[in-house]
């Protein structure tokens, strides 16, 4: 098993039923839930990595709160957006990035 969203039915916080949203990642559709960050959408969809370090090594979320900059993505054409801090919007076009593609 891997990362997953706690199902809304049975969530102790009394979350309302999920409102779906869809983003694209390098052109591929990925489904998420309104309220998730981009990092949350990607992780819950089974993706752990979306950036490459200088050596090409894969990276995804590390700190989860905007401190490490490991989770950078290009969102609707804007580079270097921290996926853990950006709320996903229906229709967001996301592109993975690597460190040297500047």
């Amino acid at each position, binding site marked *: 098993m891997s990362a997953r969203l*706690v199902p809304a039915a049975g969530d*102790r*916080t*009394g979350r309302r039923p999920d409102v779906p949203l869809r983003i694209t990642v390098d052109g591929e559709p990925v489904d998420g839930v309104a309220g998730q960050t981009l990092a949350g959408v990607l992780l819950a969809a089974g993706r752990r990595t979306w950036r490459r*370090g*200088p050596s090409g090594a894969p990276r995804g979320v590390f*700190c989860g709160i905007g401190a490490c900059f490991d989770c950078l993505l290009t969102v609707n054409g*804007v580079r270097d*957006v921290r996926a853990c801090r*950006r709320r996903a919007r229906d229709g967001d076009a996301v592109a993975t990035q690597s460190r040297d593609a500047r």
Partner: protein
Amino acid sequence: MSRHVVVVGSGPAGLGAAAGALRAGARVTLLDAAEDPGGQYHRMPPAAFGAARPGRLHHGWRGFERLRDRVLGHPRCAWWPESAVWSVDRTEQGPPHVHVLRGEADGAGRERHVLRPDGLVLAPGAHDRVLPFPGWELPGVYTAGAAQALAKGERLVVGDPVLIAGSGPFLLPVAASLIEAGATVLEVLEANPAATVARGWAARPWELAAQAGKAGELAGYAGLLARHRVPYRTGRAVIEARGDGRVEEAVTARLHHDWSVVPGTERTVPVDALCVTHGFSPQLELPVAAGCRLRGGAFTDVDDDQRTSVPGVYAAGEITGIAGAPAARTEGLLAGWAAGGGDPGDRAAAALRRRRDRARAFAGRLAAAHPVGAAWPGWLRPDTIVCRCEETDYGTLLHAADGAAAGSARAVRLGTRAGLGPCQARVCGPTVAELLRGRAGGGDPHRRPVAQPIRLGELANPPVDTPDKKESAR
């Protein structure tokens, strides 16, 4: 006109500061880079989740809601969500000017604002400190705080099964959150031996009694672990993560009290995710940019009323010492009261100072129970990455420190690029400083003149007029 107090950060410390300043009669602008107040401790679920009972995941939620509603609904308080302070400018007289970007996180074309407060309270909090070990850069290795933030804030478990390791009381709430969210927690590893932990916790029992709330919270977590048969092992640590493109196994080992590995005690554990923390690093870039003196190079130095060394600048919460949410709130109340021009002789302020001092004593006890052992670099191999951004490894770092270019930490950083990547040494800074101690001198791992990223286009735009009247987004 009443004093204008700007409070940066709306965690327990910042919310407390806003309340303190309002009580003193000041006008307050409370701002946070996040969309909601609460900080790391009272992390609110996103509005779109429509959670009817968010308090189920939190201690002291009622009290938080009351404080939040009182502060945000106050006629003298302006609440600025999604507002990142990217720089503070020292001035000849009075507190520094505060440069703010308002808009979506890391967006382009956010609005620039400049605030010129009569009093400034800094309460930006901390992030996990994780010591490097071979493989810690593999996807699926998270800070414990990341697992906590995603579980509380987005109802996401980072993996299943998970292993939680490192040091400190924070391991317990993280394990509790993951269990609550339905993940299998294999074990919780505290690197310090039982004797160190027990000595730290058992000393001076009257202090513990005075912190009944926090101690009870921790006892509750311990009970939960026991009920779910999750072992809490002391004197054992994760010394390596392995896997092909993602973490698949953790290597754990017994440690001596100084965190050197006991040979032959290695064990390999298959994991889906690994959550690690070795304490917290305060976010010191704003106090450093403001010119505030540090205590021991590690925390913002404050006096009895949370005043920093810079006139008009106050600090509260984790940037003054790691003491937990109740301490942060109390420090905030004091800082806000003083920043707002409140009477230092006030009876309530005196009571707050006593409460703050008890909370600090509790923090001292935690630090004693969960020290970082000096022999941890023994886990490192020459090819172990130390700076995640630039992938500088331990061997390269040592070589540069011993080589001809040695002498200054700055020269080592320029030569190896350690600490010069996107995170600006937030993650590796304290570690590199520690590894180079005695080899290369100088350098301040907390100097980051640009505290949050700003885009060139945004920088080129003039600041918009700062509204003086109350405005509130929610």
